[in-house]
């Protein structure tokens, strides 16, 4: 079968690989019909995540058709169309039982700090991912969710990660009615977080990025304010001023370790790897939230450590809430929102690329060429 194949930082190709096998009674094999490239994949692509091995197939955002099931699988049948959450989750450990499907303790032997994630390095479990024609899906009775008849498959594929992550970013913000919410990052996740902030009753939503085309998009799509940090001397000062010198009630970091905007952070975090990615957006979030405010982090950082103004977290009494999204927990609510027209995820898809051209798709998304917001990959077997 054809699959994306990682060869090293900034180098990927489509190549043939053996068809995946059922390795556990709870497994299913899914024939992928669509997969996305995510901002999280860029951290791997840029070589920022330790234990990213050559030959691995990335891809944690995919949907498809159940092709084969293991002996204990009961909730899925061959032929079902399924949304596969990006988290590999067992459903029975203490964490899954309490709704923390992003923190499963039975899906990743290689690290305890992060649960299993499809196609996301060996630090997240060593699973080959869904940027392929077929993929092995463990715990098939737990994560995969049947795509409702009425749902557009372009919406369905965004339910595997982007929509739940944006939603959870807003949820973790503990937004009170009327709150001013600042979202750092106008990528797919930040766009969704801005859109969802309104669902929690935000009074004002502000998005910060430096790519004009994304700012234009989010301004329309999420009906919010959007500003370019390159046009400000100091984004923190800008936010203080625009909140009557009080600070934002809630700040959301939807950027993570690939942040730009501070040369010192970029050099130490992305070039020298002295820290686990550059923490520019998180730094701004901590410093522009009000005293007693909440900083919600969904941006992904590496596992070592980062330079952040922790002293200000203490002095300002900030609450930090963060996690990998718990996709399975949120799916029922989000499916409702889509059906009711409150969320329209597929509007963020800008590029549809054949899996054979995966190298171009990565480069376009990484270098932000051709006004790219969200690229999806279509395997050859899904185009027949």
């Amino acid at each position, binding site marked *: 079968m054809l699959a994306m194949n990682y*060869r*090293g*930082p900034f*180098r*990927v*190709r489509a190549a043939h690989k053996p068809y995946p096998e059922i*390795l*556990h*009674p*709870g497994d299913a094999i899914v024939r992928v019909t669509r997969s996305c490239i995510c901002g999280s994949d860029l951290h791997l692509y840029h070589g920022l995540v*330790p*234990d990213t*091995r*050559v*030959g*691995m*197939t990335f891809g944690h955002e995919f949907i498809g058709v159940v092709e084969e099931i293991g002996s*204990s699988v009961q909730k899925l049948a061959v032929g079902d169309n399924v949304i596969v959450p990006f988290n*590999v989750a*067992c459903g*029975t*450990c*203490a964490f899954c*039982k*309490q*709704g*923390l499907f992003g923190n499963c*303790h*039975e*899906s*990743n*032997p*290689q*690290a*305890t*700090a992060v649960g*299993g994630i499809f196609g996301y390095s*060996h630090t997240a*479990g*060593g*699973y*080959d991912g869904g940027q392929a024609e077929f993929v092995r899906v*463990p*715990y098939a009775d737990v994560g995969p969710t049947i795509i409702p008849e009425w749902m557009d498959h372009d919406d369905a594929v965004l339910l595997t990660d982007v929509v739940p992550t944006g939603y*959870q970013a807003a949820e*973790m913000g503990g937004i009170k009615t009327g709150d001013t919410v600042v979202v750092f990052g106008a990528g797919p996740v930040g766009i969704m977080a801005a859109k969802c902030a309104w669902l929690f009753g935000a009074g004002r939503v502000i998005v910060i990025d430096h790519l004009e085309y994304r700012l234009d998009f989010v301004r329309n799509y999420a009906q919010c304010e959007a500003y370019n940090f390159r046009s400000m001397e100091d984004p923190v000062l800008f936010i203080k001023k625009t909140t009557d010198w009080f600070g934002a009630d809630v700040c959301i970091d939807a950027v993570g370790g690939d942040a730009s905007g501070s040369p010192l952070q970029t050099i130490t975090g992305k070039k020298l*790897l002295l820290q686990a990615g550059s923490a520019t957006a998180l730094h701004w979030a901590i410093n522009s939230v009000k005293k007693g405010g909440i900083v919600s982090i969904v941006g992904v950082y*590496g*596992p*070592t450590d980062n330079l952040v103004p922790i002293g200000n977290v203490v002095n300002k009494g900030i*609450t930090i*809430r963060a*996690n990998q999204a*718990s996709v399975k927990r949120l799916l029922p609510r989000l499916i409702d929102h889509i059906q009711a027209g409150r969320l329209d995820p597929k509007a963020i898809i800008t590029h549809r690329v054949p899996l054979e051209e995966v*190298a*171009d798709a990565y*480069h*376009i998304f990484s*270098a932000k*060429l051709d006004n790219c917001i969200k690229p999806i990959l279509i395997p050859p077997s899904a185009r027949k």
Partner: protein
Amino acid sequence: MEQIPNEYSHINGWGIDADPKNEPTYPMKNYTGDDHQRINWERPPLQNVTVEILKSNERPNLTAVFGTSSPPSGLSGAIRRYAFKSSESEYGHWLPLLLADRINVVEGIIDDLRQGHIPNIFAEKGWKADWKYNRIGLAKNVLIGVAVTTALIVLVNRKKRKSAL
């Protein structure tokens, strides 16, 4: 607190201000008390180990399932095995892994050549997309490439000339 459990009866005021409703992690977490059972949940059936899997030393056993992509091999594999002697809290874990990742890239190229495949690095870097959407950037990259190569040639020639003298 209605009744103080025996093991705490010697502590005056134990649990007096406990407020189960103050659960700041809700709704991210639906607190059930399972945390205090530690890791003693009923485990799913265990996947058979068919390839070498490295295990974090912060846990007692492998997880019930795991990925089997790209098992450790060669020099990078040896470094990865070494890295897993240290916990996730140590630089001794992550820095060797990053080093192994870089060595693995070279191993990947050697593997390709061994299989008679010359990797098309430009295609792998997606430069075709640059030709379409980013010609100025591409031109810059090519110019830098040419400049660096020329400088190298000049340098090597100079050295040669010196040693010929």
